[in-house]
């Protein structure tokens, strides 16, 4: 299944070639990348607009990190194009690199340097003059809330603080495009919340963000648009609601009841919008397909059959449902 719900790529009517639009921060077209004989990116396309937080979702080994490394020109690729802010991205595109920040999946800092020294060093790779860096380093430390730890070495920081240091090193030079590769792995809820708020703040200040994660709820919380990829290619893209509309799954209705008879259950199972209905003697669970009156129709049947019930709840489909339906439930490496 491959769906393009919200495309911003223009197609030339004569040649059929896709062209980047003026507001693309990242434009990836037909990228192909192999690791030996294994296909890592299979004609992969990605278009990230300036000023948005774009979520890149996919199971382990789906090609997210490979895609990011190709965008950053760290990895070579066999075919396809990568442009950043409208210009081709190469290993020597130093002007472009100046505008990019990267927060890698693994914490990438020097254990021998303090928090402040680490942030200052990574800033120096972008801003050579010491006096120009001081305010930026102060800002980055304040942004991630590491003021009281600025003279600590990484070995003395907790996992959450390390992640925040990792972020500070990636954003200290005020980049216009920031790539976050699973920045909240192994982080407690408080730190995760702080990180997500910080990312939204960066977006509010004008940065464009490409965000990868396994955590559906945080992607749903902060991302303007989301792409789900698997086996090195895009399988769906759009807003969270657009993605939910793509799958053949509606709300999940749960009814607490003790006296549901077999005839009523059979009636419900026969309804065209009901994908599945199960009763365990205490609880009736109904998985619905899309429909506007699903809950009302269920209630009508319960009333008509004289079934007494207590608590009733209806849950819309989640991004997690979308993800599992699109990528399958088989375990990945």
């Amino acid at each position, binding site marked *: 299944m491959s769906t393009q719900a919200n495309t911003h790529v223009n197609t030339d009517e004569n040649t059929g070639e896709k062209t980047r639009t003026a507001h693309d921060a990242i434009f990836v077209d037909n990228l192909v990348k192999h690791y030996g004989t294994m296909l890592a990116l299979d004609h992969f396309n990605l278009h990230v607009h300036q000023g948005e937080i774009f979520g890149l979702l996919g199971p382990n080994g789906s090609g997210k990190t490979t895609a990011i490394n190709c965008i950053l020109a760290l990895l070579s690729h066999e075919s396809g194009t990568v442009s950043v802010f409208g210009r081709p991205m190469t*290993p020597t595109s*130093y002007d472009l690199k100046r505008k990019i920040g990267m927060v890698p999946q693994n914490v990438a800092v020097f254990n021998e340097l303090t928090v402040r020294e680490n942030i200052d060093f990574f800033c120096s790779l972008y801003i050579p003059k*010491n006096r120009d860096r001081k305010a930026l380093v102060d800002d980055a430390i304040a942004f991630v809330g590491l003021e009281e730890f600025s003279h600590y070495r990484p070995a003395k920081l907790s996992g959450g603080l390390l992640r925040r240091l990792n972020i500070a090193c990636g954003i200290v030079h005020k980049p216009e495009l920031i790539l976050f590769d699973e920045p909240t792995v192994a982080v407690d809820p408080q730190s995760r919340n702080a990180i997500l708020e910080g990312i939204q703040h960066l977006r509010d200040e004008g940065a464009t963000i490409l965000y990868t994660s396994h955590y559906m709820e945080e992607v749903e919380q902060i991302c303007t648009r989301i792409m789900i990829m698997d086996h090195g290619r895009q399988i769906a893209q759009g807003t969270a609601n657009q993605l939910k509309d793509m799958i053949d799954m509606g709300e999940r209705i749960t009814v607490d009841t003790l006296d549901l008879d077999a005839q009523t259950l059979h009636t419900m199972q026969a309804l065209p919008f009901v994908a599945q209905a199960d009763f365990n003697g205490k609880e009736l669970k109904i998985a619905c397909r899309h429909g506007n009156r699903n809950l009302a129709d269920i209630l009508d049947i319960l009333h008509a059959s004289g079934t007494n019930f207590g608590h009733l709840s209806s849950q819309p489909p989640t991004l997690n449902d979308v993800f599992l339906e699109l990528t399958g439930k088989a375990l990945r490496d």
Partner: protein
Amino acid sequence: MWTTFLTTIKVNLREKSNLLWLFIFPILMASLFWGMFSGLTNRQIQAQNFAVVHDSNWSTVAGADSLVNALAGKNTNGTKLIRPTTVSSVSAAKKRVQAGHDSGYLFVNDVGSFGIAISDDLYNEFTNNMSSSTASITVSSLRSIITQFNHSQTTLKTLAASHPTASTQGQTQTRQQAQLQIQAQLERYIAASTASAKLSYTRNRSLTNFAPDQFARYYYALLGMVSMMSMSFAITSISTAQANLSAVGARRSIAPLPKWRQFSAILLASWLTSFLSLVVSFCYIRFVCNIAVGGREPLAILALLIASFTATAFGLLIGAIPRLSRGAKTGISTAIACFGALFAGLYGSFAMSLSDSISRNIPTFDLFNPVKQVSNLFYDLLYYDSLQPFMTTVGILLITGAICMTLAISLMRRRSYANL
């Protein structure tokens, strides 16, 4: 680039394993050598209390008094081996020894030969701790001198008996006159040759500018090993600059600082820290352990600069090898240093003999041993008047370094990778 340079130095100097192996370990090793070798070179003879038995046998030996005076350092300003006390009989001498007044006694036996007897304590010290006791060296010296005296006396007596004119240049004389001549001859001999308890017929002449030091080579080999171990600075630094070697390297690779500038900063910083570690070791060896470099300290510093350059080039090459962990690379560098040190003679007299044997029989092998070449730098300075051997060794190390550097650059010039 400046910040990269400073940061690399900071990281190198803060890494605990670097501090241990490149600053503390060499000092410990040099101290160990110092403790071992200084005991051998600085040992002094300690005069012992000895009784001298002036009984009836004593007067039968020509030159006996002169010998005792010489051993007591009375005739000359030579080394004093004994503090003599004259007694009339062997039994009196034994009593003094048993009472602890003397360590032994000198006597003349019935056949007219000198003898030496020592106390049980001195005997135990002599046999149990032969190589390190100052008293045992005194006993050894006494034994050697008395043996030699007895031998000389026997030779002269035999000569006088068989050729009575030998000592009087052809003049006819009686046997008694001949014996008197022998006694006079012995006394002159003793006076001349026992001045410092050194009965030597040879004379030391130095063929080099500086007095040879047989132990200096161990310290030089240590410097060679430390120089090669210091390649770990470059290994650590380059591992954090290559995208395919570490996460930090990947982060640095996406920055707009050109690769050649990062490489230059790393090269200079690693070279400097390597040089610094060698300077610390050298200063300790030179000024604390007092190991000379032929009075050519400025050239020794140049040698350290060359050695650290070669080590850094080696480190960059090993550090740039893809798909090897940093631990494996550090292991390789340690193996090169330790293996090279074996063939440079660091591990004792056997290793030194092996090193000499290799140098004599397969000198080409030494060209591929950077530890040996670095130790040669200092050896050349100490032993050769000419600077040509030193410059040859410098050339070998520079060429080795240049080859390693070229290979390292070829491995590192990639900017994007097929795999990370």
